[in-house]
């Protein structure tokens, strides 16, 4: 404020969002041998009073939408909370009925924490679509049904977990070295040894290691059934993919001026550590921040 050299821009609080927390008990909902394909949060939008909507539409004829954002709430050891944006969509005040959000990432974050007895906590924020003098109050007309019997028991928030049994749909770990892999083999990690000494260009240059186990992914995956294909948007062919890798460290000799020195280089993604079956187009889940 008192500095001559720093231009000051005043800010104003402009948000009057309404936030609600949803708590889902996850105990025994995701069996250990299952893989989460998609988690869907369903909220029932209650009809707003027609008179109120009419008045609102008259005042702001082109602004009948609000934004609804879903957050995952991480309850940390020290009791503090951290929120992560999961999904967001615009919702019209004229709509009523079920609205769906993809909360797969939230369930994945919850799984990463490994606290199976902890519930999944989501936060629903209903806020203005735009900020500015012309922004409407449409967000004040959006209301979702709760578990309250007055809202109708069938309209309580729902979490749908779509899972696949990995015994049937997953990869099988390492390939059997005694059986040659073919297309009919179930997806597995095949051991391959890369002998660096076999390559002419590595001579007198790559000092260590002489070779390494690289592995690759071979085989095919069980395809989804018809009922899955009707439901999931990414139900393309399931293929055997590399899903986890490790780096390869090397000691190399390099010329620096007149001298030859040794260096360590770490080459990323050189060793396959895991193969999995997945459909193309499936979203890649993010890792939790430390």
């Amino acid at each position, binding site marked *: 404020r008192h500095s001559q050299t720093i231009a000051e821009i005043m800010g104003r609080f402009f948000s009057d969002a309404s936030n609600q927390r949803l708590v889902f008990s996850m105990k025994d909902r995701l069996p250990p041998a299952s893989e989460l394909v998609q988690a869907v949060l369903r909220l029932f939008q209650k009809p707003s009073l027609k008179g109120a909507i009419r008045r609102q539409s008259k005042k702001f004829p082109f602004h009948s939408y609000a934004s609804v954002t879903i957050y995952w709430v991480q309850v940390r050891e020290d009791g503090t909370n951290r929120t992560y944006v999961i999904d967001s969509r615009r919702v019209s005040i004229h709509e009523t009925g079920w609205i769906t959000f993809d909360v797969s990432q939230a369930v994945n974050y919850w799984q990463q924490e490994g606290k199976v007895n902890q519930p999944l906590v989501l936060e629903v924020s209903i806020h203005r679509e735009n900020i500015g003098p012309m922004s409407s109050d449409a967000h004040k007309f959006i209301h979702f049904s709760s578990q309250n019997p007055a809202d109708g028991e069938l309209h309580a928030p729902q979490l749908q977990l779509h899972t696949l049994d990995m015994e049937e749909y997953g990869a099988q770990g390492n390939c059997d070295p005694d059986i040659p892999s073919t297309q009919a083999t179930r997806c597995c990690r095949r051991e*391959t040894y890369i002998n660096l000494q076999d390559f002419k260009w590595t001579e*007198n240059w790559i000092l260590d290691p002489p070779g390494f186990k690289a592995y690759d992914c071979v085989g095919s995956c069980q395809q989804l059934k018809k009922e899955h294909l009707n439901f999931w948007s990414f139900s393309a062919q399931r293929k055997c993919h590399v899903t986890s890798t*490790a780096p390869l460290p090397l000691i*190399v000799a390099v010329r620096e001026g007149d001298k030859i020195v040794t260096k360590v280089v770490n080459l990323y993604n050189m060793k396959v550590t895991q193969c999995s079956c997945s459909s193309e187009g499936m979203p890649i889940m993010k890792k939790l921040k430390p």
Partner: protein
Amino acid sequence: QMEKKIQESLLRQLHLNKIPVLEKADVEHLVIPDHVRTKYVSLMKRSSEEPSPRGK
């Protein structure tokens, strides 16, 4: 395929345009210093312990 991948990754990390040519005599008496060996061993250990997500 793997050979090409290793070669490209190595050149990129060392900021080299082409494969360096070293004679046997150049490296014959080369001693790998302890700090280089220690770093290599620790990376090797980590590499076999922790799988990292693809694309890291």
